[in-house]
């Protein structure tokens, strides 16, 4: 059959008389199409959206369900020996050792978890990408310097390093001349500092490969500056890996924050943090089991959701995966 016949058929197929044009899907459309097929990833995405909603509208939600604010203490809800009361119609998930509503604190804890995770991950990715780009593109002394720095930081036991930094910055006016203040700022900074090395290595590897590609050579031959090549040619090709890694670094950051809060470092005491709640609940688990369950389940589901979404994105962005 001749080409002309195909065009004729195309024209014939369109009842309105306009020719049908076959349009290629954009990368985003392809990504979404592939991701949609992964049910676990979609459920995880929905859960994450739900979490964001909870975090943003926490005060309204707490008000609507009739729970008290997270830091309202009510000692009358403790028995005469100071033990917290369990779930009731007024306090669906019971109260903690200071008479504070556990459900309310779990809801507000979403804010802390997401705020710390998203900001620290963003900073870690920014630092990592910049370091990886510079290291992989320029190579030589720049690569050597950055890579050795990464090696040194990776040699530190991460949790101990985080504990040390968090402890040092949690007292008085913080550290770095007050640039890092005690509280959430400390936790965010600490997580970012210990987390940027992994994306730096990953991006460096990608850049080492990309810089040898023909399109980079072509841009160079056309007189493009290094900055243009880095940001206009190489960086766009790193978006996929960056997205995947970001979704995988977020749950690590959430767990990190929970661990630091569990150890009593960084987050201020009254801040409703899941990790701090779990820590507080350990001494009363025998008599007040509910106190640990709520933040524990919340933490579990959140970390799981981000991990599953990250896996789904990784598969969806893999060019070898079937369309």
């Amino acid at each position: 059959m001749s080409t002309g016949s195909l065009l004729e058929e195309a024209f014939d197929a369109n009842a309105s008389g306009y020719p049908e044009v076959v349009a290629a899907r954009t990368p985003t459309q392809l990504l979404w199409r592939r991701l949609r097929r992964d049910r676990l990833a979609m459920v995880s995405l929905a859960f994450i959206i739900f979490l964001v909603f909870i975090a943003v509208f926490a005060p309204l939600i707490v008000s609507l369900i009739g729970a008290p604010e997270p830091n309202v203490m009510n000692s009358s809800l403790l028995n005469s020996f100071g033990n917290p009361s369990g779930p009731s119609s007024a306090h669906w998930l019971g109260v903690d050792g200071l008479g504070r509503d556990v459900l309310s604190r779990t809801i507000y804890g979403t804010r802390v978890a997401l705020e710390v995770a998203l900001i620290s991950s963003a900073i870690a990715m920014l630092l990592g990408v910049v370091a990886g780009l510079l290291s992989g593109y320029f190579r030589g002394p720049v690569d050597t310097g950055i890579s050795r720095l990464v090696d040194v930081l990776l040699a530190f036991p991460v949790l101990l390093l985080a504990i040390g930094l968090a402890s040092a910055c949690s007292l008085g006016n913080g550290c770095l001349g007050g640039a890092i203040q005690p509280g959430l700022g400390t936790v965010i900074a600490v997580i970012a500092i210990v987390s940027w090395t992994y994306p730096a290595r990953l991006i460096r590897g990608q850049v080492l490969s990309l810089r040898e590609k023909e399109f980079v050579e072509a841009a160079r031959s056309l007189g493009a500056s290094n900055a243009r090549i880095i940001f206009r040619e190489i960086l766009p090709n790193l978006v996929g890996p960056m997205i995947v890694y970001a979704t995988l670094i977020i749950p690590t950051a959430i767990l990190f924050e929970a661990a630091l809060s569990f150890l009593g470092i960084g987050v201020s005491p009254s801040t409703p943090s899941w990790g701090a709640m779990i820590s507080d609940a350990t001494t009363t688990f025998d008599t007040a089991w509910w106190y640990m369950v709520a933040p524990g389940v919340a933490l579990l589901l959140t970390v799981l959701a981000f991990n599953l979404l990250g896996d789904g994105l990784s598969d969806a962005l893999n060019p070898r995966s079937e369309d």
Partner: protein
Amino acid sequence: MSRIMRLSIGLMATGLAIAVSACGGGGSGGSASLGVPNKQDTSGKQGGTLTVLASGDVDYIDPGAAYYQFSYMIDYATQRPLYSWAPDETQTPTPDLAVAQPKVSNSGKTITVEIRPNILYSPPLQKQAVTSADVKYGIERGFMPSVANGYATAYLGNIVGAAEFSEGKATEISGITTPTPTTIVFNLTKPTTAAVIGALALPLSAPVPESYAAKYDAGKTSTYGTHQVSTGPYMIRNNAAGETVGYQVGKSIDLVRNPNWDAKTDYRKAYLNEIKVTEGNADSAVASRQILQGQSQINGDFGPPPAQLQQLFQKKSSQLVLAPSGGIRYVALNTTVAPLDNLNVRKAIVAVSDREAMRKARGGEALGPIATHFIPPEMPGFDQAGGEKGPDYDFLANPTGNLALAQSYMKKAGYPSGSYTGSQVLQIVGTSGGQAQKLAEITQAQLAKLGFKTKLQLVTQDAMYTQFCNVPKKAVAVCPNVGWLKDFNDAQTILVPTFNGENIVQVNNSNWPQLNVPSINEAMNSAQLITDPNKAADAWAAIDKQVTAQAPAIPWIWDQQPNIASQNVQGVISKFNAQWDLSFTSIK
């Protein structure tokens, strides 16, 4: 006894949850079934090794420097001060190195003590007997900068020549004389007899041979502690050179029998062959479980957490003993930091405070009554100061807090809205972890009710004291985790170190509110000279009321201290120290 409360509060994490009806009401004695019997059974079986689990270390291993409840647990087993405390004794010290009670003469300005002859020191000293000169040197050490005992000046500063000696202007305290090897005489500038006699029941009066110790005391910081000799039934295991190899800083203390101790000269029984103190048990839940389920163990400087205590009481109450501490816990308000320098502001803060919540954070009514002033129960002056009900000040009338009254005081303080509208951010420094942290958070929440902006800093118990609350120049506004125990059964030990403005020092300060009211200072100085016990009790009660009226702190509990032991331990409590008495405890 400041450090008694300093470390006990932070480490206790006790929130006692005694959830059985036998616990009884909120009386000062707690549960009859869990309290210390009026007369304890001090019989026991010889032998065995006892393990004491502790969270931290003693403050000082040197008995001349120690000023901490946990340190006293060790010191009263290894040293023989002139007087000490038999297990059931809280009123009158028991003659220890002394033969009998002191003789007072010269209108209360001369105190004479006869000591027992032929009391030998432990190895490496062999066949060296204690003399009165050794007691004199032991007390003089407390005034040396290399030892710097925390109560020497407060209680013994009126000995003739003490001031000159501590300033380095004399080579001895001239007011302490030793006319015979078994006689020691204290000459005072003022008849502060009660204070001096009380202090002679503290470890500072334990003898120290100058010929042996002087070389260790000569440096900037004395090292006698790690070379100490003992006169009590136990000693810290040492080597031939006298080095206390049984003391590993922050790790362990190993007490063995003192081979030169003569049981016939001592009221102590000393059943145990060895006592091992193991430190670093930071998790009180784990350590408590170890004690309760294990063998031959007792607690040292911590108490079990709430959940365990509740179970303990319900299932194993014979392993728990509540001992009245003879002290008080309070939230100190710095009277030199604005706006806390305003009396009405302080009254407002006290008025709004939910002291019931504070007590529940610790463990509830089983742990003692809510405090309404500072002299604790069973101390002379307590009843005269108002007893449990207190002196009837309106700002202390409601144990759960009275916001309306608090706001009225704020209005009187110049805040028409009833809330603080200034820009000052109050610094609160509390102890991290456990019940102490809960208390700090409660304090912060109470202040927020009156509009105060606060910055809560949580640090270790030691740091809370040594780096913040004890250091006036740090200007910490609120110290929520402080408290004070008696040094001896006299109200001055509760009020003088903590509320006399003349005792404010720039380092190691115990007057945390920095209260400095001249009329109160003067009243305290006068009351210390009263020799008649009843008049003294009245005088101190009146001072207690004056101090309470200044609202320098939020008093919240006169507490009881929970002590736990393994099932096979026959524990005996030192009611003076509110802890296990190592010289009477035995293995069944």
